[in-house]
């Protein structure tokens, strides 16, 4: 059983990366990736509940693959990131991702089915470089949570770089929290803090 499962995770992982590299539209990317991950989680809910590290691994290598972490990191760091090396930017992006995944991946287990994720038609100002995919996540209580993804076109196709929940963007919100900390303690200290959990972006 476990072997079969490991195989499944590997298959998803290997399969997933080239898929996103193709010229898929942002909506297709969200639809296929989120749908797949939710299906996997639904099939193996009990297993993932007992193995949070496997869950984080799955989320990191499947869902978070959509994200242009370096770009997100540069946006959050702003002018404080200008003197940082590429390695520091990269480490910062990964540390931020890990913090978010550690904190929120458990929430994915509350999903009952793929139908709980609804993708709204495109609206507003979209360019051929920048767009937003708006989704609604149905909640058990009867309401829904609006979750939007900002995408930009890169050489590897469309990549997401920001998530907004109820209109509150991670990047916009973290920017003003992280900036002063980097100024005060330096980027390496903030990366270490994110890793150890002593630096929070929104507390919790």
């Amino acid at each position, binding site marked *: 059983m476990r072997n079969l499962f490991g195989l499944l995770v590997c298959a998803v992982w290997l399969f997933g990366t080239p898929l996103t590299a193709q010229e898929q539209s942002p909506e297709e990317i969200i639809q296929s990736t989120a749908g797949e991950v939710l299906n996997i989680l639904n099939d193996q809910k009990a297993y993932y509940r007992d193995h949070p590290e496997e869950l984080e691994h799955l989320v990191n290598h499947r869902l978070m693959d959509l994200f242009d972490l370096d770009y997100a990191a540069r946006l959050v760091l702003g002018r404080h990131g200008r003197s940082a090396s590429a390695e520091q930017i990269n480490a910062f992006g990964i540390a931020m991702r890990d913090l978010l995944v550690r904190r929120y991946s458990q929430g994915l287990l509350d999903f009952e089915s793929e139908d709980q994720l609804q993708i709204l038609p495109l609206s507003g100002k979209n360019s051929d470089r920048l767009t937003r995919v708006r989704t609604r996540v149905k909640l058990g209580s009867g309401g829904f949570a609006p979750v939007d993804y900002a995408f930009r076109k890169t050489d590897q196709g469309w990549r997401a770089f920001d998530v907004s929940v109820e209109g509150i963007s991670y990047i916009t919100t973290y920017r003003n929290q992280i900036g002063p900390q980097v100024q005060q303690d330096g980027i390496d200290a903030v990366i270490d803090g994110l890793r150890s959990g002593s630096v929070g*972006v929104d507390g*919790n």
Partner: protein
Amino acid sequence: MRSHRKYRLALLLGTLILSACASTQKPLSDPDNDPWESFNRGMYKFNTAVDRAVLRPIAKGYDKVTPQPVQKGIGNFLHNLSYPATIINLALQGKFKKSAIGTGRFVLNSTVGLLGFFDVATKADIPDYDEDFGQTLAAWGWDDSRYLMLPFFGPSTLRDGIGRFGNNYIDPISQLARQEDEYRPLIFDVVHTRAGLLSQEQALEEAFDPYIFLRDAWLQSREYDIYDGDPPLPDYEDFLD
């Protein structure tokens, strides 16, 4: 008697405003949206102190003795009671069809939903709009307004602070307080609302700068409401500077 009370309050606020202005000037963290930061920070400190001393303990007690389903019902009731303001503001913004749908929601929840305690409209897939006079002022063209931390009421903007007068005029709970000197429903409303925020306060407390965290989250959430869930994308490229 009432005018005396108001006078005393005005005096108290005046003192607070002056003392906040006298505090040392630091560079503004967001000069465009928050040019009154030093005043706002003073007011935030004041609000936090009032909250710690009075409101939060009461809200915690209320939260403890009130079972979750009851709280939900009360929340539905209060939301329904404020719905006429949403209906009027939808109409003021020219959203007549939505205003009609909102009226249907209000009637359904007030009757079948037993005075609004049960949100049957949501179960029937009737959309739930959220409008107020501040949003109407934004729709009429005042779309950018400076952040303003109101005493007692918390985060707002100049525009939304002014919009409050319109909301209070319509709101039945505020009317009771204003016309009948009956403050108990208003106090109850405030305590209930505060109790609903208890689960979110940890994030605020542990933020590097809680004032900025609250401001940024509130302004974004407000923009989201004004644009009915479809605000323009932030100017991300600007963030790189």
